């Protein structure tokens, strides 16, 4: 007998149902065949995720760069272990060839490894020692911007999704990800990667649901310090940007960059320290 699976949300390191009790069907592309059911996250699910996520920022950002690097590399290993599961989902949901599905997993693993290598390097590249006119040692270092929301693309691209997640993660930020409608079926194996790679719980939270329902709450929630908007819908981006003016949220628009230092620097703040050195 075949049963249809309902994939839960991933909040605070736990797989939970939406508090609203709602779910929706995810069909194979171009068909009416139900592939699985997904929880439809409500604003309260988002709120709960933000609360947990916010509290986890310090536990992640205070890790040494070396340890963050190890954990990102561990994610690459766990992703490798789930190669077959991901490939099957891609073939089923996206109607791609076996080679293409394998290549998508390769791209994701490449991103994990690329950003793992950057954990202890981006500060050195983007930070500086500043010449100042006085007896001070003056230096500037990047620090995490804090809790970030990632709005995923509806045109599914696994490599891009992982790239966006890692670029937020590297700097010591925590995030709530709203998966796009392209292939939300990856939530379960993706969450299992994060749950089994020594990442502190709550640093990455995965939601499925409808952007139109949640956009207002994401844009106005004061604890969301930045939004990586990778969805195609420009109208929603401008709505959210307008709604977030009041709380001065950083809105990072959709971009095509992959494996880039710029992606990391979108989610850092710079701190300049003046330290007296005497004459």
């Amino acid at each position, binding site marked *: 007998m075949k049963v249809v699976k309902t994939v839960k949300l991933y909040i605070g390191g736990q797989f939970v149902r939406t508090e609203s009790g709602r779910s929706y069907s995810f069909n194979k592309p171009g068909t009416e065949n139900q592939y699985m059911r997904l929880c439809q996250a409500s604003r309260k699910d988002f709120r709960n995720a*933000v*609360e947990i996520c*916010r509290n986890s920022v310090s536990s992640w950002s205070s890790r040494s760069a070396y340890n963050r690097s190890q954990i990102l590399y561990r994610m690459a290993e766990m992703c490798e272990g789930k190669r077959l599961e991901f490939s099957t989902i891609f073939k089923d949901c996206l109607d791609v060839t076996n080679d293409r599905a394998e290549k998508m997993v390769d791209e994701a693993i490449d991103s994990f490894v690329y950003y793992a290598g950057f954990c202890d390097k981006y500060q050195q590249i983007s930070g500086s020692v500043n010449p100042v006119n006085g007896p001070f040692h003056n230096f500037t270092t990047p620090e995490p911007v804090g809790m970030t929301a990632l709005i995923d693309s509806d045109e599914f691209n696994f490599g891009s999704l992982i790239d966006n997640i890692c670029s937020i993660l590297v700097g010591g930020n925590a995030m709530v990800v709203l998966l796009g409608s392209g292939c939300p079926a990856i939530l379960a194996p993706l969450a299992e990667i994060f749950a089994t790679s020594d990442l502190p719980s709550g640093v990455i939270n995965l939601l499925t649901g409808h952007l139109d329902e949640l956009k*207002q709450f994401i844009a*106005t*929630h*004061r*604890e969301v310090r930045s939004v990586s908007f990778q969805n195609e819908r420009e109208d929603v981006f401008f709505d959210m940007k307008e709604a977030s003016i*009041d*709380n001065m949220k950083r809105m990072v628009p959709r971009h095509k960059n992959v494996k880039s230092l710029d992606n990391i620097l979108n989610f850092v703040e710079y701190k300049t320290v003046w330290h007296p050195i005497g004459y």
Partner: protein
Amino acid sequence: MASVSVRMPGGSKITIPHYPIDMIGANERASTFTKRSIKKESKLDALYTAITMTDLTTLEGADTPGKVEQLCGKAIHPVPDQFMQELQRLAPSRTIRPIPHVGAICVYPEQVPIAARCLEGSGVELASVATAFPAGQLPLDIKLRDVKRAVKFGATEIDMVIDRGAFLRGDFQKVFDEIVAVKDVCEDNAHLKVILETGELKTYDNVRLASWMAMEAGADFIKTSTGKVAPAATMPVTLIMLQAIWDYYQETGIKIGMKPAGGIRTAKQAVHYLVMVNEVLGSDWLHPTMFRFGASSLLNDLLRQIFKQYSGQYYYDDIFSLD
């Protein structure tokens, strides 16, 4: 029906009913109170009411005069002016009700003089735990001196702990006598809240028995927990105590107050408790003189939810002080 007998100081005998509680029924009934839909203005009313019922508590070994002063300031003015100004800006068409002060501050006896000075004339009550809180394992004369000192320095409410060891070994007379003695010391100067520490009483039957015993001995309030023992306040235990209060009221005409304490951290939980109080005891008990929450972090969530109700937006978590 089984019963327990104790003697009043004058020698008269009091019979306290002691019968089994249907545990599954109590749990089920308590869970039904979490399913009410309280929205919009009703929710706002509940949030404001819960603030007036909060006993803002700090009971740590590391308590300092500075911390108590800070907590008293928060009790009188729970939010900074900036909060109200921002709320009015985001909800210009609405009349923002001022945030009331909390019901009381709850501190250790050593901090009572400081708190009394800070709260003078504010309308916020000053509760002090006493009787060798939280264990209650000291001789009675020392417990009474503890209470006398707290009352003398300005405590208007005394939260006493019962001797759970005596209760569990069946020495009900000792438990009863101690409550009577403490009530005698409080006289008309302070309200007496009796902490049952339900997490240590093992069974719901015991909770019911201890509740009734405390009420017979002169408690003005009965309170679930010290907050130092898990589980602290739970919905079913509170329900059993509320039912005992109702039955006692039916029998004697005396209204006893209730204070769940420990583990109530969210506005949602607080609203569930208010629903339960309203449905078990009625609206007469929906008043700070009859119902209190013993909590510390609850207040911040109540304020956050009030902000959300008015503005439709979630506020910063760290805008409010942690203590």
